[in-house]
Each structure stands twice: as C-alpha cells, then as structure tokens.
C-alpha cells in the first residue's frame, strides 16, 4: 500500500492505494468523497474531470495522484456551495448554464483557471479556453454567457 499525502480544497488529506499510479480522479471521488468531479472518458478528451492543480486546469483522469502531492488541488466543491456559490458558479446559475449538468463542474473549473489568468477575456478567449470541454446536451451558448457574465462582474467579488 502506497501512502499519498494530498492538499485538497485547503485541507491535508492522506490516502492509501495499492497502485501508486492511481489517477487523481479515483482518489477524489472514492477516497475523499468529492464526487463533483466526474468521469467522462478517462482519456483527457472531454474535460468532465477537470480540477485545478496549482491554479492550472488539469484533467484528473490522466493525472496520477502522486504527481500532485504537495500542490494545491481545488475541486468544484472547493469553490462554493449551493447556498454560497462563488461568483463564477453564481453566474452559471444566473444563466441556467447546464442541462444534465454532468460536464458542468469541468466547465466551471476550466473557466475558473481562465479567469485567474485573464481577468476580462473576450468571447473568443472563452470559446478557446472551453473548446476542450465537451457537452452533449447543448448548454454551450449559456456556458459562454455565464463565463462572460462572471468576467464582467465588478472586481472584489473574489
């Protein structure tokens, strides 16, 4: 059993795995109960499993948990809650930017990374940043509006 020390959503967590190369996705979902991060393809192709590692958007399905030890991992649960959504999540709610919602966490995390490095992105930049996050229901137009809404919010809201 390999022991792994992780820092997730601001807290220190320790897990054990028989396979030292276990992907971060399975640790988050099954060991830490953070099921907001979703399995979509396991191939880094769809974006449903996106989390932040050191502020960068990362596909947790192909990222070994071991490789992110010591870095700050943030999942969708680390942003806000249903009663206290963070401004980006609030923008998704305001725009009703989800249908089934399965891809949404990955969309939010990817957009969060975009807004961290580009405070006021153009629509083109939003489209570019989210090009690798697939949605099969057809929520794309609302998602783009939500990110732009969050980007146009007055600064200081976090």
């Amino acid at each position: 059993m390999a022991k792994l020390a992780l820092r997730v959503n601001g807290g220190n967590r320790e897990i054990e795995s028989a396979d030292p190369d276990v992907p971060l996705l399975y640790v988050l979902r099954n060991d830490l109960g953070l099921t907001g991060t979703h399995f979509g393809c396991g191939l880094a192709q769809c974006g449903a499993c996106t989390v932040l590692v050191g502020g960068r958007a990362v596909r947790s399905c192909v990222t070994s948990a071991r490789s992110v030890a010591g870095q700050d991992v943030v999942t969708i649960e680390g942003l806000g809650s249903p009663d206290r959504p963070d401004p980006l999540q609030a923008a998704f709610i305001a725009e009703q930017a989800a249908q089934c919602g399965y891809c949404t966490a990955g969309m939010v995390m990817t957009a969060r990374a975009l807004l961290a490095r580009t405070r006021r992105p153009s629509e083109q930049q939003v489209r570019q940043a989210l090009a690798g996050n697939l949605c099969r229901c057809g929520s794309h137009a609302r998602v783009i509006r939500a990110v732009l809404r969050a980007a146009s919010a007055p600064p200081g809201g976090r």
Partner: protein
Amino acid sequence: MAALSISRRSFLAAGGVLVVGLGLDGVGRAPAQTVAGADRFLGKSLAPDAVDSFLAVHADGSVTLFVGKVDIGTGGRIAMRQIVGEELDVPLERIAMIEGDTALTPNQGATAGSYGIARGGTQLRQAAATARQALLAQAAQRLGRPAGDLQIVDGVVRAKDGTGAVTYGELIGDRAFNLKVDGGAPLKAPQSFRFIGKSLPRPDLPAKVTGRHRYLHDLTLPDMLHARVIRPPALGATLVSVDESSVAAIGGARVVRIQNFLAVVAEREWDAVRAARALQSKWTAGTGLPDSTKEFDSMRASRVVRDQEIAKRGDLSALSAPAPGMRALAASYRWPVQTHGSIGPSCGVADVRADRATVWSSSQNTHGFQATCARFLGLERDRVRVIYLDGAGSYGPNGADDAAAEAALLSKALGKPVRVQWTRQEEHGLDPKGPAQLLELRAAVDADGEVAAWETQAWLPIATANLPNIPLLSLDAAGIPQTPGRSTGLIYQNVDPPYTMPNVNAVVHWIPDAPLRTSAIRAPGKVANTFAVESFVDEVAALARVHPVDSVSAASPIRAASRFCDG
C-alpha cells in the same frame, strides 16, 4: 390493487429501509432530485387514476409530487412544480418531487418523444386540480361558508371577507385524498397563471454547478463491489477461455463469467479498472462489422417489409413526365448511425437478493425496465424496485438499461450490491444507435417556380411492435432469453414537406435490418428527415430563383402550410 399493496408492504417489512449514500450534502441540504426520507411513502397508491398516486399534501403545507416522468436535464423538475403549484396555489419552494421510482411513482410511461409535459404534466395537472377542488370543498365545510366565498392563497383557504381561514395542512395533512382524478375538475384560467408560462430557475442547478448534485454515478451502497464488463473484441465473438491468474496480482479482484458475459469486480473501483485491463481472455473471431462504405447501398437494395404512405395527394405525373418548361430535381440524403454519446458513460447499481431486487438506473423508462428486470432475475414484478437517478443527459435509450442490467446480473451472481461503470469506449461502441436513414427526394418545378410535384422516399429500419425492451447485451451474452427486436423511434415523421404543395407523394419503405442495435434518438420529429426535406426546399428555391426564406412566405412558390396552426 389491494393485493399489490399488501405485497408491497410485506416487501418493505422484509426489506426495511436501505441506507444509501444519497443523504444530505455538506451543507445539510437535500439534493434537489432526491427527497430525504422518501421511503416513508412506501405503500402509497400507484394507481394511474388516483390523486394520491401523484401527490401528497403534508401537515406543514408542503407538497410531494410523485412523477413517473423523469428529468433528464431538460427542466421537468421545475416544470412539474410549476404545473402543480399553479393548480394548487402552493409556492414552488414548498414542493418536493420524486421521479421515476417504481415503488413510489405512478407508471406514466417512458420519458420520451417530448411528451413529458404534454402527457405526464397534464396528468399531474388534473390530479392537482382534483385535489384543489376537494380541499376547497373541505374548507367550505370547515368554515361554514360556500366555496364561492373562499379563495386560496399560498396553500391557505381564506374567506374573502377575512372572517376565517384554514390551511391545506390542517385540512388534509399527510392523509390520503382517496379520490379518483376528476377529468372535470376545473383548471385555472390561463389569464390567472402565476407560475405557468414563466421561465423559472431550475431547482437542481445550484447543486449541479457546485458539485453537490448526486448522480447515479456517485451512488455507493454498503459492501458494494465495483465492476467492469469485458467486451468481445468483435460482434458475434464468443468467449473461449479466461486466464483468471492474469488478475491475481490485483488484490481483491474477482472474475465473473456467465457463458459469454465476462466481468471483473473489486471493492475499489481503480482495482476493477486495473483488473479489466489486465485480464487475459480468448475469444472467437466473430462476425465483425459490416462494410460501412456499403451501408446505404444495402439499405437501398434491401427487401422492404412494407410501404407506409405518409402523404399522397394530387397528380404526380410531373415527376415522371414533366411538362414542357418544367425542370426536374433529385437528391439523396444519407444520415449515418448516431451514437447518443452521453458525456458520462452509462452506470448502473443493483442490489439483488434472493427474493427481491433494487436497481438504480438513469433509464428513461423505469417502469418498463422494472418488468424487464423481473423477467431476467426470475422475480415477480412487485419484488423489483427500479429507482431513477440522474445520469449524464440522455437523448433516447443509451447504455443506461444495459449497465443496470449488468449490475443486476452481477449482484445476483455475487450476492452483494454491484456498481457497473461503462467506459467511454463501451458507450461509443455499444450504446444502441440512432438508426441510419436514407432519403431520396424528387421534385418538378414549373415555369412559374411552383412545385408541380414532390416526392420523398425514405428507407428506414422498422421497429418491432410491442418490444418490451431494447435487447440487452448482457442477456444475450449470458444466454438468458429475451424478446428479440428493434426500437427505432418515430423516424417516419416529417418526411413530407410541411408546406402547401398540391401534388405530393411521401412514402417510407420499411426495411427489416440495421447493422447495429438501434434506439430512438433525439429529436422525435427526426433531424434526418427535416434536414433532407428542408435542404431540398433550398435546392428547389435555388432552381426557382427565390430566397428560401421568402419561398415559404405566403406570396411565393412554396407556401407555408397551415398545418402548424391547425395542428
């Protein structure tokens, strides 16, 4: 019905309340989809014509809806609340909703064909109107006033002159209405609508956007095993041998084989994934896939089971013998098979015991699937409970029923709850496909640019009448009998142009086969047919030298039909 209810109660008494990992979220709030303590309603009416089947009014004035139609991401969860809130005059935040649970919700048929609101919603609406009528009558008696002197505001029945009031909770609180749905119960007039017709925020989105919404994929049960199914490398391949020692190094991994149905299970999901990758198995070569480059030629050359006339009117002679000055046009449109491609591969969880089973599925037809599960598990229907939980969005039957059936087979074999998670490759490769469609269109356009004659011919795979379920992969693999056949959805719709044309022939040639399993795929009016017909309208308009948009206006060659207005 009495016998059914008793048997359901004894089922409960035997089973007790199953504790599942769907409790309150981190902030102490129930996820919008699930209702905490829903099992307290077990034993309630499920009759299709009873008010109590559809709703319950509680002592605190809150309301629980029991809805056979499920919300696959399209907003039924708020729409049903709007409909009932309107008829009952109850604020929407006081309404909880249980969906697609065969032990709790009435059978309203599959969630399909865009009929969720049109059929399911109207049933619910009439039940709510019946309940309102009954509550008003009770209040009149309680307050000693004629019903006409009363008004209902937010679940409180008040005398209009302010001399008395009684709440829904006081009138009925958690007791049964014991009423049949009254088709004559008055419905609210549209001009007084408070909720219907408004675009209201969906109650499930805050949890979905913050990662707190519990999907089927997130469900865990005590002692649950994680499974991965090993698929044959080619269609028709059968299992020759399995080398179980190939997974011996993965602690806790076990191999399950039922004839050609092969799976690995483990307590930890990643171990099941690793075992699925490591397992060595030998299969026969199988038949493989037909040549995709010849698919449409095969359809065109296929035996036709029968022709179905969709529209036939006027004189079609211009198609074969155009008058002088007429121009002819022909085009064919090939619509390949479509995967549903749900963004989360299908998942299913099942807990099968000797005398009963619970299956959690994102099936769009939990009641139909309950009957299927009962058949292959060898249980009476009322010993099987199928509970809908959200999967990734579905657009017709995807792999959901398959994954749930596989979980049930494995749970039965192992005596423990089992969760089956499909891979992306399985979902893309093995979900039932939206069928291929071939359309050939012809038109003759006269010198004035009028469509003198129009013809649509469509070659479409025929659906099997009364097919109980799309044939499931695992039952075939495990040698368990099931009804063979095909489901294709309403693929004949809109092969005829929705425009005023005097001379039209639109015919479907139903063909018997399709190369892959098929199922309905959004949208019911069929994208393929509309694409072909509208593309051809553009071609005709180009030939007639008119703009296609103008061409469907009243003053142009292709006049908009009154069909959409007339229904």
